[in-house]
Structures are given as structure tokens and as C-alpha cells.
């Protein structure tokens, strides 16, 4: 028993020391030998693992590195989001932008010895289209795909898709050996052209994934380690302990409250902004909740939220206050729209009175244990100050299902908005996933048409107009763009991806 008391005391003491001095020399990363500093091994920590390496498991976001290890993509991205060659060296559209022709690298083989060529691309596209992958909508405009010759492949589209070349840097661009599709173990034994092969003996599904360098890898433009290990951590606490013990070279990180401990352990924190969060209004025609049909009410809610305070309290200031749903990397982004709706509860009250809701009204929003409860009660309090009563209904594990099923007229939400057309498809067009009540206007429809079919310049101008429209008409009440974190120790240099939560694997490189 005494030992326990002593241990608790020692822990309290060391915690105290760590809090005021950053732990001193004992927590620096140099004096441990657990993570190698040469190119022998790279160890990555993640908070997600893929359902499988088969097409149904294809996913990017926090899963992308597992797939980048074994599969090359047709196109890659650099850290600024520019498209750069992968398995395809060139890509061109025809004038109507409905045929995309790729020129493929010649002489590359899959790790089972079979050749990578136009037929292999066709087989992969068709396998993707027949699957139930979460990214199935990547292929929604692809009518057919044709092997022109061994090194040229043509995607024929039903309508232009401004996102297609970007999709080819992700799930839709993963190239697996066609012979492996029918293997019974296709989900656990991937065959690609990628920099690594999965070491099945050392891999424990759902825990540790070990990859060995592909000795015949075709691309020497970036460093491939001898071994790559991706460790899955179920909790932030376990991941934090692994970081403090310098067990990982690079890792996803989400818990802003322990940022200081991560930095004290000698890690660099890399930041990017991909998502914004705030309130989404769905019933903008007021068919269920009449007040939401009035633009003044939606504007009033925008004015009623003290965004900066919420950002400071919930995210410890790690983000940027905004009023627009388009992210900084998009063409539709306009810096002056960030402070379009300042915090002004008096203006909110007078707008509500103008709209005939001087006595306020009630709104029902969904809740779930996975959501930040402090954030939700801040929203409740601030809206109550202008007379709007928010009740929260628990949705259990079905938060998204209930939302998308149209059970709620508004909600808190976090949405990705790093690409113009992707965001339009996610939340703006009449049949968008997050436009459940199908809000639509002829003016917007014309702009969407231009975004989809116009030249890059026309599309960019249209995106700006769309952005202005949805801000002025208060389709949403964005609070802030949220900082996305990735951490690396001194042995690596990480370039955050422009549109993905975890960096593409080829963006994590040795420091020396």
C-alpha cells in the first residue's frame, strides 16, 4: 500500500515538474533509441484503421497512409494541393470537358509481377463502380472508361466533373492488381505497385500494420523507409503516452488540451485548415420550422453567436473565426466575408422582432454523446439570450443517419470545405448530402452549372458568387475554420496535405 501512495506522490511531483518546466531533459526526444533517426524505419500513430484493403475499404482522410503504403495513385498532390504525376504522367480534358485522357507510366509492375497498364486502370475503375466504397460518389459522372492503348486511358463522363482529377489522387486513384480482386483475402493482403508491401505475419489487424519496402519500387523521387509501421490507438490518452514515450515518429493529433505536452516531448505540430464548424440550417424554406424560412431569423442566429469566445474556450483559440462556408484554399473564398456577421446580440434581437419573433421561438437540434457538450450548451445559452429556445434530442449512434434522414431542421455540424465543387456537392446543390430539404434557387442553379462546366476562371468566379449568396442569405451560421493537427518528431519533416486530414504518405520525409 505504501508503494501505491509513494507512486501517486511521485506521479504528482513529476506531473507538476512537467507542467512548469516542460519536463526538462528527460522528455526530449534525442535521448531515446526507440525511434530510429535514419531511413531504416518510420513509425506512424493513427486514431483510425481501415475496414480492409479491398475496394470496399478504400478511404482517405485519416486512413490514407495505409493505402498510400501499398497502392500508388494515378495522380498525386503536393503540399499546396497542386496535382503532380503519379502512375499517370499527364492528364488532359477534351474541349467539352467530358473526356479525360491519362498518359500512364510505362514498364511498372504490381508486386505480384503483373503489368500496370491501361487495362489494369479500366479493371480498377470498373471494380470501384461495382463496389460499396464510401467514396463511391467519386465515380458518379464516369460513364465508361476505355483503354486507348497500353499507356493511354480515357474516362468518358456524363457531365464535366471538376473534382475528377482530385479524386484520382485519392480512393478513386488507388491502383490494385486486377488479379487480386477475386482473392478471398483481398481485404487483408493488398497487391499494388506502391512503395511498400504489407507484412501479413507481423500485422495485427486493428492494432499494428507493418509494411516492408518494395525492393522494386519504380519511384526514387522520395525516400521510402526499410520498414513502415502504422500503429492504431483507440484513445487519445494512449496516443499521447506513445508520443511522450517517443514511440511514434509522426502521428495524427486532435486533443488541443494536451498540445503543450506534445511540444514538450520534442514534437513539431503541423497545422492546416480543412473543415469549418458551426450551425447548419436545413429547412430554409420553413416547411417544418417556419421561423427558419425567414432569412432575417437565420441572420439573427449568425449575429447571436459569440464565435471568438467559443473558439477560445472550446478550441483554445486554434482556428479562425469566419462567416463563410468556403475554406481558404478554395477559389470561392473571400477574405472579407470572414467577419460578415460579427457578434451583435442587439442586432439579432431587432432582426427577430422585424421577422415577427419578438417573443422568440423554439428549435429542436440533435445531440449525441460524441458531440462536445460544452459547445452545445454554449450555443443554447447564446441563442437563449436572444429569445431562441434550443432543445437537444439525443440521437444515440444515429446522429448522421437522423440528420441525413431529414429529422432535424438545423444542427451543429463540422463540414469539409477545402475544394469548391466538393463542398458544393456536399452541402449546396439541390440534391447535396447536407441539403436534406433541397433548398434551391434558379440563380444558384445557373452558378452551379458554371462551376461544373465552365473554364477554371469561370468556375472560380461562379464559386465566389455562390459563396456570397449563401453568406448573405445565411444558409449556415459558420463559427470558425478549425485547425487540423499532425505532429512529427525531429527525425521527420511533414508537409500537411491541402485537402486531407492526414498527410499523404509521400509527404512525410526524413529530416536529414
Amino acid at each position, binding site marked *: *500500500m505504501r508503494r*501505491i501512495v509513494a*507512486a*501517486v506522490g*511521485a*506521479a504528482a511531483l*513529476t*506531473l507538476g515538474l512537467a507542467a512548469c518546466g516542460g519536463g526538462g531533459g*528527460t*522528455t526530449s526526444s534525442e535521448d*531515446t533509441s*526507440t525511434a530510429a533517426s535514419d531511413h531504416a524505419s518510420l513509425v506512424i500513430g493513427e486514431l483510425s*484503421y481501415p*475496414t*480492409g484493403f*479491398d475496394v*470496399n*475499404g478504400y*478511404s482517405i*482522410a485519416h486512413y490514407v497512409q495505409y493505402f498510400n503504403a501499398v497502392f500508388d495513385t494515378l495522380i498525386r498532390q503536393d503540399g499546396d494541393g497542386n496535382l503532380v504525376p503519379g502512375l499517370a504522367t499527364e492528364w488532359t480534358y477534351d474541349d467539352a470537358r467530358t473526356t479525360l485522357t491519362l498518359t500512364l507510366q510505362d514498364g511498372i509492375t504490381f508486386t505480384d509481377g503483373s503489368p500496370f497498364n491501361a487495362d489494369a486502370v479500366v479493371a480498377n475503375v470498373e471494380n470501384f463502380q461495382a*463496389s*460499396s*466504397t*464510401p*467514396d*463511391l*460518389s467519386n465515380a*458518379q459522372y464516369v460513364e465508361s472508361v476505355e483503354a486507348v492503348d497500353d499507356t493511354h486511358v480515357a474516362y468518358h463522363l456524363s457531365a464535366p466533373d471538376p473534382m475528377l482529377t482530385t479524386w484520382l489522387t485519392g480512393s478513386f486513384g488507388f491502383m490494385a492488381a486486377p488479379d487480386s480482386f477475386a482473392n478471398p483475402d483481398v*481485404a*487483408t493482403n493488398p497487391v499494388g505497385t506502391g512503395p511498400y508491401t504489407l507484412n501479413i505475419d*507481423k500485422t*495485427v*489487424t*486493428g*492494432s*499494428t500494420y507493418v509494411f516492408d519496402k518494395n525492393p522494386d519500387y519504380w519511384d526514387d523521387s522520395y525516400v521510402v523507409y526499410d520498414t513502415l509501421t502504422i*500503429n*492504431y*490507438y*483507440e*484513445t487519445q*490518452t*494512449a*496516443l499521447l*503516452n*506513445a508520443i*511522450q*514515450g517517443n*514511440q511514434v515518429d509522426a502521428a495524427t493529433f486532435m486533443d488541443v488540451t494536451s498540445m503543450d505536452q506534445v511540444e514538450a516531448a520534442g514534437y513539431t505540430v503541423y497545422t492546416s485548415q480543412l473543415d469549418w464548424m458551426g450551425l447548419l440550417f436545413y429547412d430554409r424554406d420553413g416547411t417544418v420550422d417556419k421561423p427558419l424560412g425567414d432569412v432575417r431569423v437565420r441572420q439573427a442566429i449568425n449575429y447571436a453567436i459569440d464565435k471568438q469566445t467559443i473558439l477560445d474556450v472550446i478550441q483554445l483559440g486554434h482556428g479562425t473565426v469566419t462567416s463563410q462556408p468556403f475554406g481558404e484554399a478554395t477559389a470561392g473564398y473571400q477574405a472579407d466575408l470572414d467577419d460578415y456577421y460579427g457578434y451583435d446580440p442587439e442586432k439579432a434581437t431587432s432582426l427577430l422582432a422585424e421577422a415577427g419573433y419578438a417573443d422568440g421561438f423554439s428549435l429542436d437540434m440533435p445531440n449525441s454523446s460524441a458531440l462536445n457538450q460544452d459547445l452545445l450548451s454554449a450555443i443554447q445559452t447564446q441563442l437563449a439570450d436572444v429569445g431562441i429556445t434550443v432543445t437537444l434530442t439525443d440521437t*444515440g*449512434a*444515429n446522429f*448522421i*443517419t437522423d440528420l*441525413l434522414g431529414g429529422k432535424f431542421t438545423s444542427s451543429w455540424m463540422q463540414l*469539409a470545405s477545402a475544394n469548391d465543387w466538393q463542398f458544393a456537392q*456536399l452541402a449546396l446543390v439541390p440534391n447535396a*448530402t447536407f441539403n436534406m430539404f433541397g433548398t434551391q434557387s434558379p440563380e444558384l442553379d445557373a452558378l452551379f452549372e458554371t462551376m461544373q462546366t465552365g473554364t477554371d476562371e469561370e468556375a472560380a468566379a461562379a464559386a465566389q458568387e455562390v459563396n456570397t449568396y449563401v453568406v448573405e442569405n445565411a444558409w449556415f451560421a459558420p463559427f470558425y475554420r478549425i485547425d487540423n493537427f499532425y505532429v512529427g518528431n525531429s527525425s521527420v519533416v511533414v508537409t500537411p496535405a491541402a485537402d486531407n486530414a492526414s498527410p499523404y504518405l509521400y509527404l512525410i520525409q526524413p529530416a536529414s
Partner: protein
Amino acid sequence: MLSFLVRRLLSGIAMLAVISTLAYLLMFMTGTDIARNLLGQNASEEAVAARAAQLGLDQPLLTRYVDWVSGALHGDLGTSWFSSVPVTELVGQRLGVTLSLVFLSTFFAALVAVIVGVIAAVHRGWIDRGLQVGSIVGAAIPNYLVALVLVIVLAIQLKWFEPTGYTRPQDSISGWLMSITLPVLALVVTTVAGVAQQVRGSLIDALRQDYVRTLRSRGLPEWRVVLLHALRNAAGPALSVLALLFVGLLGGAVIIEQLFAIPGAGSLAISSTSQGDIPVVMGLVVAIAVIVLVVNLVIDILQGWFNPKVRIS
């Protein structure tokens, strides 16, 4: 004794059938949208519908249950919806890790508990009072707190151990021992005092019996009286507590596994339940139910060995 065992075995099988049916129905009663959970918020409705059809979620509940039972009776528990690995393989792999943790923890908890319990019962005094306090404190401190303190002090500050991770014994025996030392320590620290308390109590009762006085009057050395005679008679209640402890540790390992990032059955149970990965949850339910039944059976047999009265009744 044999008919007793057969009865226990039959009731065990009946229990297994009831447990698995209830678990199957409960999993569906939560109404979780499994396909949506699998695919995430950005997936289109078409992708979700395609996945639901692929998993057979569009079939009636009864059809799916009958399919599962007929598969299970042939030893086929299906494939994980989330990790695409056969359930028997996944559960076998994960359960082995958890059982090694739980067995080692039970063993060390029992060993230390007997030593401490005997000393406390024989010497009483400050050791005994320390045990009283210790068992209350041990029961009150959550094991994850103990684990966190162990990690911070022994792994992060002193660097004697790795803070997270698990080395498989087939890869390195010493690595395996290093990787499970802290988890086992955390489990033992929080459970040992309670068992020691039980040993102490029943040993004190045994030492008050007439036969002990008789043995002493015949001049037997005190250590023989305590260790060979009284302790054996005190073993019954302690064994029952140990069985409870073992089953309790199966549950207690859940949080410990999460904290140390150990790929055990506990963390699998948590993640597959929240994901709605029904084949895996059912595999775990069946496997753990079998383990609990077997442990109870073994304890019954041990009880009979320690106490002939149980064999006769």
C-alpha cells in the same frame, strides 16, 4: 461428482443458447444504422444502400439470425464487417492476448493475496490493519488511474518500459514480458488486497476451529498447522473469490487494454459494439460465455478436491 458435472455442462449449453440469442436481438434493438456508421458522414445514400445490401442488412431479422446460428453450429462465425477478417481468427487472436493478461494477473493476485492474507491472519497487528485499509483503497482506486500513474512514472519519466504497445510472445519473449508488465501490475494492484482480505478472513475462521487446537496440542509445528491444514480448509471461499476475480478481470482488462494500446478482446468488444460489427460482437459473446462457464466448472472441480463434502452432495 460425474452427474454433477454433466448437469453443469448441460445447463451451461442451455445458457449459451439463451445468451447468444439475447445478445443478437439486443444488438439490433439499438437501431444503429450500421452501414452509415461503417461509411461515415460523407458517403452518399447510394453507397450506404449498397453496403447494407452487401451485408444482408436488408433481410428480415429472423432470416439473419437463423443464418448466423446455422453458421455458428458449423464453426463459422462469419467475417468482421469492419475489418474484413474472419471472426474466429480475429476473436482467437484478441482473446489469447486478453487471457494471457488475465491469467497472469489472477496468478500474481492469488500468490500475493495468499502470502499477505496468511501473514495478516497469523500475525495480525499492523500488517492486518494495513490490509484492511489497503483493501478499501484498492477497491476505491480505479485501475486506469493506477495504470496512468504507472505509465507516467515508470515508462515516460524513468523509461523502464514502453508506455504503449504489445509484443507478441512469438516475436520476442522478453519483449512480451516487458510489454505486459505494466498492464498486469495495474490489474494486480487494484485487486490483490480484496482477495488477500478474503484469505485472511477465512483463515482466521479456520484457525478458530477445534481441530486446530487439537493439532497444536499434538505438538505440530505452527507452520504445518497453518499452511497444510487451516489454509486448505480456508481455500473454499478464497477460490470462489478467485473465480469472481478472473471474470471481473476480463471486464477490467477493457480499459487497461485501451490505455496501453494492447490488441485484446476488451478493446475489440468496445469498438465492435459501437461500430455495430455484429459478427464480431457475437463471436466475443460466445467465446467469453464459454470461458466463464469453463472457469466456473474448473472452480467446482477444485472445490471438490479441497473439500470432500462438495463431492458427496
